């Protein structure tokens, strides 16, 4: 499906054209002929069922997965013009499994990309303090080892690490999937604040429609490797393009209604 929005005047942070990736001998497509433009400063959520290709699409952006076909342009420059590791140093990436290096301290984890970029030691130290502050953790956390942190604290460090080298693009793969609901909401909101404050372009893969609706400016729905819907949360909630998307988007509304009904019922029961 083609991008429903016409290209605007502002340059795209990320542009994908005709990107395909297949796996295995059978050549089954994980994503097929994807065209997608992501405007600078937008917060895009990619949703869909497991196996819909949303994670493959995200990893194609920083070349953790190399597509079989198609072109990827980051900030007006084709992604393949420089080595993959250099590209990745300029794109923040938050992992589903968090992926903190267990043998490095929190400060070393946060400072790893600046270190790879050859920043001076003092500058890295300053940046680590700044980032701990940014993700709302005390500065003395820098000396701790990842094993000594809670799940939520670890993912805050994961976000700090992704932002360490001051990237303009932040990719997140199910970043809050492993966290408890309270931490999840707190961290989601913190993330959105960071996005606004730092003027990032954020692409987040999630299977949680609630999260997508509440955090993103734009939701891209994937099904069997193809984009089936792409619009603002509000537009998709009110006017979904097909039945499948309607049922997907209806879930948060349905749940909200149930909670409301339960609360009302409880009130009635409590009153009567």
């Amino acid at each position, binding site marked *: 499906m083609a991008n429903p929005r016409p290209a605007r005047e502002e340059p795209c942070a990320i542009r994908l054209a005709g990107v395909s990736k297949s796996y295995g001998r059978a050549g089954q497509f994980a994503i097929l002929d994807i065209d997608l433009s992501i405007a600078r400063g937008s917060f895009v959520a990619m949703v869909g069922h497991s196996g819909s290709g949303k994670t493959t699409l995200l990893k194609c952006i*920083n070349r*953790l997965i190399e597509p079989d076909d198609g072109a990827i342009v980051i900030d007006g420059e084709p992604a393949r013009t420089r*080595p*993959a*590791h*250099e*590209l*990745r*140093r*300029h794109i923040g*990436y938050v*992992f*589903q*499994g*968090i*992926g*903190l*290096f*267990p*043998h490095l301290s929190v400060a070393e984890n946060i400072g*790893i*990309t600046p270190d*790879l*970029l050859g920043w001076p030691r003092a500058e890295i130290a300053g940046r680590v303090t700044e980032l701990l502050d940014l993700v709302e953790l005390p500065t003395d956390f820098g000396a701790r080892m990842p094993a000594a942190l809670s799940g939520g604290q670890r993912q805050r460090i994961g976000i700090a*690490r992704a932002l360490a080298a001051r990237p303009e693009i932040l990719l997140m793969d199910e970043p809050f999937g492993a966290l408890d609901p309270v931490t999840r909401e707190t961290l989601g909101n913190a993330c959105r604040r960071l996005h606004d404050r730092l003027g990032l372009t954020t692409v987040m893969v999630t299977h949680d429609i609630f999260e997508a609706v509440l955090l993103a400016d734009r939701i891209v729905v994937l099904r069997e490797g193809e984009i089936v819907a792409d619009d603002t949360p509000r537009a998709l909630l009110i006017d979904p393009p097909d039945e499948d998307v309607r049922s997907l988007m209806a879930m948060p509304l349905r749940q909200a209604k149930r909670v409301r009904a339960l609360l009302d019922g409880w009130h009635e029961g409590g009153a009567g």
Partner: protein
Amino acid sequence: MTDGAFASALRVLPEFLGYHVLLSAAALALSIVLSVPLAVIASRSPRLRWPLLSFVSLVQTIPGLALMALFYPILLALSLAWERLTGEGFSALGFLPALLALTLYSMLPVVRNIATGFANLDPALIEAAHGVGMTGRQRLRRIELPLVAPYAMAGIRTAAVWVIGTATLATPVGQTSLGNYIFSGLQTENWVWVLFGCAVSALLALAVDQLLALIDSGIARRRRGRIRAGILLLLAGVLAAAFTVLMPASRSGYVVGAKNFTEQYILADLIGQRLEAAGHGAAVRSGLGSAVAFRALAEGDVDVYVDYSGTIWANVMHRADHPPRDVMLREMTDWLQRRHGVVLVGSLGFENAYALAMRRDRATALGVRTIADLAGPAPRLTIGGDYEFFVRPEWASVRDGYGLRFGRMREFQSTFMYRALVDGEVDVISAFSSDGRIAADRLIVLADPRHRIPPYDAILLVSPKRARDGDLMAALTPLVGAISIDEMREANFMVDRPEGARSPAAAARWLGARIAAPVGD
């Protein structure tokens, strides 16, 4: 045993331990240097993983001693090829075969543990390493190797204990190690020495393991101090070993060779004592295999040792004829000089021939007095031999000359061979005519009426590089013709007797005192 056994063990401890530490450290270091890249390759390429791990496992199944022995012919061929290429060969004995065998032997735990470490790495961490922008090499150095390090350390600790234990087997290929206590102790029934060798090697293994554990905990807890302390202490140990081993050698010492039986220990000590009395340094390199000893001499690894004319005639010159004694000695002297540049200084004056010996009562019961009498009862009898005897040409000569077909043939370490004969487990053994145990155990030596066993005069051989060494010759010449068969038997028996046994060095001093000519001036 004797009151002197422990003291004598302590006296040679610096040398034995020093060599043992150097050999073990070199093998372990080489093993680590080779294993790490191999394990990385194995973990990167599934196609190479199986053959690599299979190879290191296969090496493990070869007994340690056999592995060292196997390296000898390989190295010898290499040395000859190298000599043809550059004009200078290297020694195929001693340090090199021991080092290579131990290295190969210790690679299994290191390679396998590192490969396991790589296999257990969390794929999420590998993706994270890519995601933060690491190159392949940065990922290996910053993430994979540090995370695999604890596995590697576990493998290195296992390898270290193995290497230190197995290094005792370096003695038979001519490398001094703590195995010298064990092998010569076994030969002379000096159990204090055997126990001493085992205990020191066990203590060394424990100490090294503790130091490696210190490094290990330093890695795990990110304490650089512990890692540094562990490495420094290990290095200090190796340096101390190198110091003790290399220092005495710098006093221009002679190396006296000895094969692995009592008489050889005594004669080597005797030569060593004479050299020291004349103001020279001398070190005994004992426990050499029979074939190993001559090659070590020809290559100059050993300066002097005592061999036996029949052995050189049959095994080195590959002669099957039996000329009279004086003709044989003359031809041998010429041949050794021509072919190897080895100097035959002369006979010591006694013979240590292979002989067939029996218990007196058993021989009487069977009516056996000469080897010829054995042909009849042989199919009902068991013959015991040392590890060499049955593959030697002398045995073929005796067997075929008298038509001997024994019911059973068994091989023993020579101490146990005599025990087996006395206990009646075997009926006939391959004895040596100068062996003190012949008299001690009241054995009879069977006559050889057809002269199938060539003469075995004890002869002094000097290496090509010492051929013109006047000091050495001056110390050795008085020994020519100076030791009678009775004296040698008595000296051998001093060491081999079950009650009040003496050390080879003490027997050598006794023998030295009997030799009239004073040493030096």
